[in-house]
């Protein structure tokens, strides 16, 4: 019965449908094209380059395809492995500190009261984030200057002898770690603050009725809400530290010796000093793979949906 009465509309429907079928594509096209232009195309280009002998300063050699030769060379390159290991050490040095400080600051800001103070602090947290990496490096050079740097002045106040930060391998590593922590702790704090504000008030209060320990509250009630943010921070930072260049370069150029020679500094050297684009692309692709693997690991280890 009903189908009989709506007989005419189905004849018009193909017109509507053809319009409707393409509409979503049209809406998506700009985003997809942009993504292709700024993300996929360069990546594909890097993949292709990584399969070639591609040195910009040896144009007369041409750019022949060499298969996986670049990858094999990179994997066999002990400098690459060393710098990667150093980068990993850097990651495990700065991340726990940034996370711990970030959570502490976030908890302090999450407490009720001090409305004006909190607003001021929240804004000032953005300052390190908004500072260019290279400028952070320059600031670092000043802070850790042996003779007139702030770091040694602090040390002197506490009765410790000044340290030759940038001239000492461990000191230099510590110095770049400190600057990284300075720059990124606020980011962690803001992410965690957002996570804390996701905890429904009454859930937090219910927990406060069951335990007096802020630590237990953090561990059992707030932490689950922090995990998505934590995952994001870990992923972002693993990608970011793998390409951390400007700050370290302006501060130490990877020295003294190889103390702060992170993998990004090495890749930059291969790519833009030696101009061996093939090898540099292979290194970059390997790091991309590493980033993806790490991201999957972080997601499966930490990411839990809460609703």
């Amino acid at each position, binding site marked *: 019965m009903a189908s009989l009465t709506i007989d005419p509309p189905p004849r018009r429907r193909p017109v509507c449908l053809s319009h409707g079928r393409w509409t979503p594509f049209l809406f998506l096209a700009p985003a997809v094209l942009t993504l292709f232009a700024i993300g996929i195309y360069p990546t594909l280009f890097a993949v292709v380059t990584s399969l070639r002998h591609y040195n910009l300063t040896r144009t007369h050699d041409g750019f022949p395809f060499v298969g996986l030769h670049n990858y094999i060379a990179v994997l066999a390159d002990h400098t690459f492995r060393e710098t990667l290991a150093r980068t990993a050490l850097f990651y495990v040095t700065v991340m726990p500190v940034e996370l711990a400080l970030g959570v502490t600051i976030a908890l302090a800001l999450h407490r009720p009261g001090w409305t004006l103070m909190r607003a001021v602090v929240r804004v000032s947290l953005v300052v390190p984030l908004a500072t260019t990496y290279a400028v952070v490096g320059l600031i670092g050079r000043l802070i850790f200057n042996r003779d007139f740097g702030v770091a040694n002045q602090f040390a002197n106040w506490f009765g410790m002898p000044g340290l030759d930060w940038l001239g000492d391998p461990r000191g230099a590593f510590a110095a770049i770690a400190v600057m990284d922590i300075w720059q990124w702790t606020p980011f962690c704090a803001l992410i965690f603050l957002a996570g804390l504000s996701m905890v*429904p008030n*009454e*859930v937090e*209060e*219910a*927990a*406060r*009725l*069951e*335990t*007096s*320990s802020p630590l*237990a509250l953090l561990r*059992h*009630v707030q932490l*689950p809400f922090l995990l998505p943010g934590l995952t994001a921070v870990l992923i972002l930072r693993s990608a970011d530290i793998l390409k951390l260049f400007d700050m370290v370069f302006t501060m130490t150029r990877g020295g003294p010796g190889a103390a702060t020679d992170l993998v990004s500094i090495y890749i930059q050297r291969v790519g833009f000093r030696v101009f061996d684009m093939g090898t540099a692309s292979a290194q970059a692709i390997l790091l991309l793979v590493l980033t993806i693997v790490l991201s999957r690991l972080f997601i499966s280890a930490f990411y*839990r949906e*809460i*609703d």
Partner: protein
Amino acid sequence: MEFLKIDNVVKKYGDATVIGGVGLTAREGEFVVFVGPSGCGKSTLLRLIAGLDEVSDGRIHIDGIDVTEVPPAARGVAMVFQSYALYPHMNVRQNMSFGLKMLDTPADEIQRRVAEAARILKLEHLLERRPKELSGGQRQRVAIGRAIVRKPRLFLFDEPLSNLDAELRGEMRVEIARLHQDLGVTMVYVTHDQVEAMTLADRIVVLRGGHVEQIGTPAELYDHPVNTFVAGFIGSPKMNFLSVTVASVEGTVVRVASPSLAGGSATLDLAHPVVARSGDALSLGLRPEHLVPDGPGAVRLATVLDYVENLGGQSLLYTRAAGGEAAICLLQGRHQAARHEAIALCADAAHAYLFDGDGHAL
């Protein structure tokens, strides 16, 4: 024995006073209901008892101990929230055992208590589910279960039923009442719903604007409201109020006059000396359920019928008195009457309330 004692408690947020010096006590095992319109401070008062907010002034005692400075978890209270406030990342069992774990209760004891609570609340088959997989009523039962397992000395309920639909609300109300009987624990219950207040409470505390209006048993509040606010708040439908003037006072007997009254006046015996003089403007309060069309009562209202609502076994008559005031009558059975028909609504003088110009009961 005063189990809960609230002593002149004040709560201010900045310049705004939310609770302005409230004092009350509750016996052990008593079911106390805070009731009042929204913004009256009833929830704040509950949070002060729980310790979730700090008092600005005054003291709170539980079981003879001053807990004013004691952190919430150490007060031995359990609270059920309007939004249930279950831990979203824990299943039902974990939700109920969290508090006990925090108290380092042995595992088998936790197991036993959770099982017991689950049995009482019929949650046995839901123990492994997450809150998001439960219905509203089930969530509320889990919230109650979480409170029960800790065996608190004081239960606090913050509008626990207002997120439920009417039918479920009725069921849960009965469950809570039964729970109170079974456990015999002191409970403080916040609601804006006077039906919940009347049915559950041993004693009701009526709050308005951060002050106590009246404390008493449901019957006391119903029979002897101290002012028009309480009189209007307790009872459903709301009490009818008519403006009257005092015609004469003789001892305990007062004659009031109003154009709405059939014959222009009515005589009431208040059974206590009347502090009013001729010519005073008063309010005459009559509950809808006490009005009977063409009944025998001494107070007779001359009204015209506006509209009838048929509730099945009962009917609600919306009328307009001769003086212009609206008056509602609740009567058993059905009423066959046409619109604009004149009706005399009669009430027994014993069921008439008089309030002075400030709203205080005479």
